[in-house]
């Protein structure tokens, strides 16, 4: 659906159900250069089971208008504003990769609004390889190829997408390339590289938090994901074996099952 955030047209997938502000809200936040489309194997499930779902396109990404936000802090604040913009008071957040930094920032800036936090493929800092950063800022398609290479685990490189017929290396690549690379991926990579508040913010988080980590993740390595989880008080950690950074696509079923249990326990539907 389209709605306004700070006066700018914003798009979010509602998982195929009409948005209802009276249902518990889950907001999904994508990673660098990507869009709502990476979440389809998680969002539709919750949308058809009593939740309101928003898989947002950050400004300038996917189907959202405006320019990409330049810092993780701005993005975190923007996600907080989304909640009010759709007429809600609170939400659970799910972030992937850069989206983990963004959602942590959102919790730090709007603690009263956020009920649970799920971090997929996260780390407390995501410093960029300088060459990759330069390629992305020059809109060189090689940046996307490198990102897809790093983002998928060894098994993911062979394919075997949960949805028959999809070849996920190219799906991710096309999502990024449907926009000018420097305006989305380039800006996002720079924002990740500049962001240094992760450890301090993580130590202050005080809400039910789940980290889902890929054992073969080369973008945000398993050990870095564990360090982040250790910073967060009481954080639950689930590791998916034989999986890279794109667990939401590479191992979509396992990811959904883990998320389902966490949401059911910490953010259940109100009893009728």
């Amino acid at each position, binding site marked *: 659906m389209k709605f306004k955030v700070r006066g700018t047209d914003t798009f979010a*997938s509602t998982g195929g159900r009409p948005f209802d502000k009276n249902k518990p809200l889950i907001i999904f936040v994508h990673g660098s250069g990507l869009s709502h489309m990476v979440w389809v*194997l998680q969002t*539709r499930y919750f949308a058809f089971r009593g939740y309101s779902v928003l898989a947002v396109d950050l400004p300038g990404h996917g189907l959202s208008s405006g320019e990409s936000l330049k810092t993780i802090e701005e993005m975190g604040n923007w996600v907080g504003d989304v909640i009010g913009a759709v007429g809600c008071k609170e939400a659970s957040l799910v972030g992937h990769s850069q989206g983990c930094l963004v959602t942590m920032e959102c919790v730090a800036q709007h603690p009263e609004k956020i009920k649970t936090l799920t971090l997929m493929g996260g780390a407390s800092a995501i410093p960029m390889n300088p060459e990759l950063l330069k390629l992305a800022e020059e809109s060189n398609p090689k940046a996307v*190829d490198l990102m897809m290479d790093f983002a998928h685990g060894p098994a993911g490189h*062979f394919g*075997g997408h949960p949805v028959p017929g999809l*070849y996920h290396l190219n799906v991710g690549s*096309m999502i990024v390339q449907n926009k000018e690379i420097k305006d989305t991926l380039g800006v996002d990579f720079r924002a990740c590289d500049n962001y240094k508040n992760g450890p301090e913010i993580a130590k202050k988080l005080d809400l039910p938090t789940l980290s889902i980590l890929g054992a073969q993740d080369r973008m945000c390595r398993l050990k870095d994901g564990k360090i982040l989880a250790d910073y967060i008080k009481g954080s639950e950690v689930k590791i998916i074996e034989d999986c890279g950074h794109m667990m939401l696509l590479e191992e*979509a*079923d396992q990811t959904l099952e883990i998320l389902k249990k966490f949401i059911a326990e910490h953010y259940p539907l109100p009893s009728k």
Partner: protein
Amino acid sequence: MDPKTYKFDTLSLHAGYQPSKNAGSRQVPIYQTTSYMFDDVDHAAALFNLERGGHIYSRMSNPTVQVLEERVCALEGGTAALATASGMSAIFLTIMTLCNAGDHMVVSSQLYGGTVNLFRLTLPKFGIKTTFVKPRDTEGFKKAIQPNTKGIFGELVGNPGNELMNMPEVSNIAKEAGIPLIIDSTYQTPYLCRPFEHGADLVVHSLTKWMSGNGSSMAGILVEGGTFDWMQNDKFPSMTEPYEGYHGLSFAEEFGPTAFTMMARAEGMRDMGPCLAPQNAWNILHGLETLSLRMEKHCSNALKMVEYLSNHDSVAWVSHASAPGHPDKELAEKILPKGTGSMIAFGIKGGKEAGAAFINNVKLASHLANVGDARTLVIHPASATHSQMDEATLKFAGLSHDMIRLSVGLEDFEDIVNDFEDGFRAAKKPRLVANK
């Protein structure tokens, strides 16, 4: 720093398959099965509602067929693919997903005869009309576009005359009009050309041909490039508007670069059911493993054949984009740098009767209605593959009565030549030989 994603030959052997998820089986297993167990009622509901991936019923998807789909998709550089029972069903499924009654297509006139009949005779029954344009008439494609046109369709190298469509320029015309370009790339295979790199949005193949190369199994496939923005205009409401069949799902919004394939599977396979048999998918996968090796030999034999035929006193003309003086030679060198394929059309001196005598007297070359087999194949299109066309349509499609269509195989070149010499010898005395 370079990406270490797998390259073409590796993908042709491995893409889409993980042994660790299949009992360690190194070869792709044949899932000769119709239906798949649900974990519980919630799992079943999620699968039926496209909330999660997985198999329900082999009309929609099958694990063996899925490997083939991903493998071809990887080789083409696409985002999603959908295998079908034949190349024709892939085309029909594509058009039925793209168009509604009252819509219009712009189509290259030089096509396999079955495809011509589909657009000329069958699709009008569903209210879908076509304007045919000669493949070299690039401006003609632009002029033929109407407000209700939903796509441009063509074979890059037309069957059987070997005229090339200027894919990059026609792609620009399609983009300007906000409609997709669909390329039947059967003749090229992704080894010779990856149409998405030249502006195509959707690609279809008959996998029966070079992709398998063994002449054992029928199969087709639709591949999506993920390049087309279905939401750029209001021409494709079935992609962009809520779809009643899946609780108001908008395929374009939800699935973006894979939306077309998702809809073709969810609607087309559900309702029309042209599914590929797993055994056939497995046979095609075997062929794909050697695609590069075979295409190299197909092309090298074809080049020698063009030279041989061009210098033969029984041959009136030769059409192959590698041939000196071919009008599309420059374009072919740009789009098809690895080779222009193994289909050759040539005119035999003495016309139809000489052609019949030639075909009746070659022994190694097989006379049949197929192309892209590992074996050399010949046919007289005007009396076989394109025989359902009237004279005017034949002429418009670039066919003549002296034309012989040759699909050059992988045999030793000298053996093909010796066989052809027998054919040409007989063609010089057509009445005598034809009546014997």
